């Protein structure tokens, strides 16, 4: 059973087409060329599918780093303290 951190990591690797080495939970949009506006839509769809939470438009726009995704999901009771 994958942890929530692993699930989120897998999702971002897939959506942003990152290699394992390129990924870190400290990444932000500025550091990832493939993190464009369409990637935000894809991340939102992936989060919905993986964690069952649908970002509000404001939340989606406010996501500029991996930590922002975790913050929103933790506020919804999805724990990332499992790593």
């Amino acid at each position, binding site marked *: 059973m994958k942890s929530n951190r692993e699930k989120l990591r897998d999702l971002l690797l897939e959506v942003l*087409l990152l*290699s394992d080495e390129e990924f870190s939970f400290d990444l932000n949009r500025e550091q990832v060329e493939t993190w464009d506006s*369409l990637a935000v839509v*894809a991340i939102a769809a992936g989060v919905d599918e993986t964690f069952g939470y649908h970002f509000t438009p404001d939340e989606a726009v406010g996501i500029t780093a991996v930590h922002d995704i975790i913050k929103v999901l933790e506020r919804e009771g999805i724990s990332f303290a499992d790593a």
Partner: protein
Amino acid sequence: MANDVVVMQESEIRSNFRVLDTRWRSAETFAILPSNLPVTEEWLDDALHHLPQEFYTKHFLLLTSGSTGQPKLVVANRERAELLAEVIHRLQDGEATRETICCLPLSYSYSFVNQWLWSRILERRLILTDGFMRPGELKVALDAACDAMICMVGAQVPLLRSFFGDRTFPGIIRLHFAGGRFPQEQLDPLRQIFPNAKIFNNYGCAEAMPRLTIRRAEDADVAANIGRPVSGVELKTGEEDQLLFRSPFRAVGFIENSGFRAIADDEWVETGDLGRAADNGMWTLLGRKSEVFKRFGEKISLPAIEAVVQRVWHGELALYRETDSMGENGHIMVVAPHPEKRQLKAIMMELRRDFSRPHWPLRVESLERLPRLPNDKVDALALKERKDVIVHWSQRY
């Protein structure tokens, strides 16, 4: 029979291909159709009734539908086709060849003119095979080849490599490609399989019956370069880079659902491709008209994407268009056989390296084998209907 036009199916010709020779010698116009008729008998009967009387003799008709699925009977003049076969022979330095091995249907204008008609006019031996439908039989023909010429489509290269990748066929001295993207990236493995072959890229379309340009493989380093026009052929670009031609060898007209449509001598005919003049009189293809489109304001070229993927993927590959959930044009990528995880990663990383997200596929799917038309091109219509695909990656919207 309709309107005195003799109709022959591929299977009939294959059971006795001398019948074709007899038909060519007689004055009556005839039609050659694929074995698996992509049209109804009613459609065919109706289409043949549209043929103007002036073409009841000294012409031949080939049915083309290709991956677009729109059937069309192309009406060709025999004398022009014979002249073109001779021109192709000279341009491709064909004098040294003694025979040709067919691995494509004869109802396909490419193999009909470049191989059957060529062998008839130049008095060379013609060896018919069922191509990759019966790879064992094809291998026997390739093993026995003696100063032979073979015509293939680029889509056959993955099949060739999968069946015969570890073999060599020194008896093949000419290898021609047409009918789709030239396999420029696969020249090294092709040269290993056919160590004595001069390789040529042929470009044309059914309305050209069929050749417009030719180039030696070595004369350019990109697949999209189609070389220079054959003597007498003129190319130009029209609106939005549409590639147009005039040719003394072209078909005299074609019959579609709407009836017969003549091609005038001075008419610029659409090839269905987009193109651009390159250096030294050569031309470059930008893609099929239907393969270049806008997505989120960016110009997407499916052939360009295909070229990038083929740097790392040597299996079968097909791209087809689909609209996404936002109503934007997009495309689906299908590979075969099913890729390993590392192969998929390599494909995606190559896409990321060369393209921004709008160019990436909406989905990457796989099948054990791609569905094929009788001429071994990918059957795009059948591909879209397949329910047994495995989805490996998607844009998620």
